[in-house]
């Protein structure tokens, strides 16, 4: 089904001029969406983009009707996008007004605006299709997007958008981050919250309106939400998250268009979104910072260390061990034999463990605030966690004024 040769060709930009144009456009769009979407996610406004994208549809319809009315071709793209932007702004103002002036939650306001604008848009599109004016064929592609017949000019538009977004995000990265993290502090340091939010909404609108052409208004929101959510699993830093999110978006655009070019009847927009979703699931499972697997691995490694330490202390005290997990851990490291008696290595390890426990006890007496951190650290070899001079100091205190280690 998938044409491997065509897929490779698409990935190496050698599948022909048109495919290459589409790929470049999708990469830039994905990158811009991921970048802007990061701030949208951190500002906890992700769903606003959904209202915004659905609110573009009536504008597309009205712009088409107006242009056809004045005798032109209704499909003049800049005109349609301008209409989309204007009606998105009206929708956005509606959401804002509803949440501020009434007691509606923002999700209710978003739902109300989204569905009514979308309903109006669908009615307008149906009317247009029944009128038979202004070469309306293809107007429906705004719903789900289309990459067929994408022109070089449109790729240029996307490139300009990406540069523009990059510039604005770079210049305003600090106010944007500050408003997302701590609105109160941002305001007291002289940042205009309203203007910063407007800037963010403007960036979202720029991405949405240009994305209409490729992925369509129903799915364009995915390019603003999925990449940052995926990126969040990889990092604990805002700046890194912005870069990773942009990369996830760009990779989705790239792989998505390549797949759609190599499989017959694979629609580019939805495939791009599906690729992003796959990247999201992979991040969720595999990312080291917050991924599910790594979290499980760390939890397991920690519980293993707890069992090892408990077992060694039991050996030292000559107590019998009953916990099956403890026995399993000790056996796997050959610290005890099959019958439960300690090996030579086990006895040595037990003595080391006892000494380190004693040093940690002194450490905690000196640093009562460190209890939480020490609970993790004390299970590792002490030399990995404290400096040589710190350990020497603990040993000095351990030995006591007489300089003799107390008997164990």
């Amino acid at each position, binding site marked *: 089904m998938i044409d491997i040769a065509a897929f490779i060709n698409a990935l190496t930009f050698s599948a022909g001029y048109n495919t290459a144009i589409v790929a470049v456009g999708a990469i830039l769009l994905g990158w811009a969406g991921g970048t802007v979407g990061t701030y949208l996610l*951190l500002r*906890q406004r992700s769903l606003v983009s959904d209202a915004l994208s659905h609110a573009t549809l009536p504008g597309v319809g009205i712009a088409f009707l107006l242009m056809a009315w004045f005798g032109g071709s209704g499909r003049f793209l800049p005109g349609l996008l301008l209409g989309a932007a204007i009606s998105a702004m009206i929708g956005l103002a509606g959401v804002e007004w509803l949440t501020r002036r009434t007691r509606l939650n923002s999700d209710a306001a978003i739902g109300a605006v989204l569905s009514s604008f979308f309903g109006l848009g669908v009615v307008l599109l149906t009317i247009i299709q029944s009128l038979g004016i202004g070469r309306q064929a293809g107007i429906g592609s705004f719903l789900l997007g289309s990459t067929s017949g994408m022109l070089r000019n449109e790729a240029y538009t996307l490139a300009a958008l990406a540069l523009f977004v990059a510039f604005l995000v*770079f*210049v*305003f990265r*600090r*106010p944007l*981050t*500050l408003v*997302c*993290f*701590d*609105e*109160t*502090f941002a*305001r*007291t*340091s*002289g940042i205009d919250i309203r203007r910063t939010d407007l800037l963010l909404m403007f960036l979202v609108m720029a991405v949405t309106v240009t994305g209409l052409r490729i992925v369509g208004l129903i799915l364009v929101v995915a390019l603003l939400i999925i990449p940052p959510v995926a990126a*969040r699993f990889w*990092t*604990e*830093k*805002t700046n*890194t*998250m912005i870069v990773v999110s942009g990369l996830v978006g760009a990779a989705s655009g790239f792989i998505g268009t390549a797949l759609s070019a190599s499989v017959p009847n694979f629609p580019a927009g939805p495939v791009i979104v599906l690729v992003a979703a796959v990247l999201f699931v992979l991040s969720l499972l595999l990312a080291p910072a917050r991924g599910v697997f790594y979290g499980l691995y760390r939890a397991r490694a920690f519980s293993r260390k707890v069992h090892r330490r408990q077992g060694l202390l039991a050996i030292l005290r000559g107590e019998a061990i009953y916990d099956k997990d403890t026995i399993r851990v000790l056996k796997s490291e050959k610290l005890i034999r099959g019958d439960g008696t300690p090996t030579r290595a086990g006895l040595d390890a037990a003595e080391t463990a006892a000494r380190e426990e004693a040093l940690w006890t002194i450490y905690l007496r000196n640093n*009562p*605030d460190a209890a*939480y951190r020490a609970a993790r650290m004390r299970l590792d070899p002490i030399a990995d966690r404290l400096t040589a001079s710190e350990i020497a100091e603990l040993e000095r205190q351990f030995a006591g004024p007489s300089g003799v280690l107390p008997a164990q």
Partner: protein
Amino acid sequence: MNVHVADGGAAFKVRGLSVAYGDKPALSSVDAVFQQGRMSAIVGPNGAGKSTMLKAAMGIIPSISGDALFFGRPLDEVRSRIAYVPQRASVDWDFPATVIDVVLMGLYRSLGPFTLIGRRQREFALGCLEEVDMVSLADRQIGQLSGGQQQRVFIARALAQKADLLLLDEPFAGVDAATEKTIVTLLKKLVREGGTAVAVHHDLSTVTAYFDDVLILNVRRIANGPVKKAFTEAHLAEAYGGRLVQAEPELI
């Protein structure tokens, strides 16, 4: 004009400040003065408008009437001399940022959009963390900190702003004893060096030990002045009514 003579020692002053949430009054024509080089507490029962007063003065929430002067001037003219420390609970600590990232936010005002944060800024931020004994946690994600450590990060960010006046909203709420001691010692040091600190405070038992001046508030101003004069049983009874018996039995 001798207008400023009257404000000579006032770092922060509110005049006739009235604030309401909808039609529910939160502050009713409050006058208060906070002297330069002193550490002042704002105390009062829950819902007395303590945080509201700071927020309204800083323009975070709108006021119906009245104004606030800082060093005798309106806020916009002297903003860089003021650092505001919000309540710890007001932010999402799961935000992707490390301890030093948050401290560096205190420098954002002084950095142009094209300036990158380099070694110099980083060293400076580490110096601020040193003051609150948090250097060893500089690269920790902020969500992994204890409440007291989070509060110390906020204090370090305020230090990074190099302000003359610190406004702190409940800096001791839900922090451990060690953090409280660190913060008090630090604030006292800043005040000794000529700085001014004004803190919303809820623990009446420590007012005398920590602060020089006090504002007792319950929607209206009850008393404002040096702790010795203003922090009296009569004023507290006026502010807290019968509730003081439950709140601070040892004071009665």
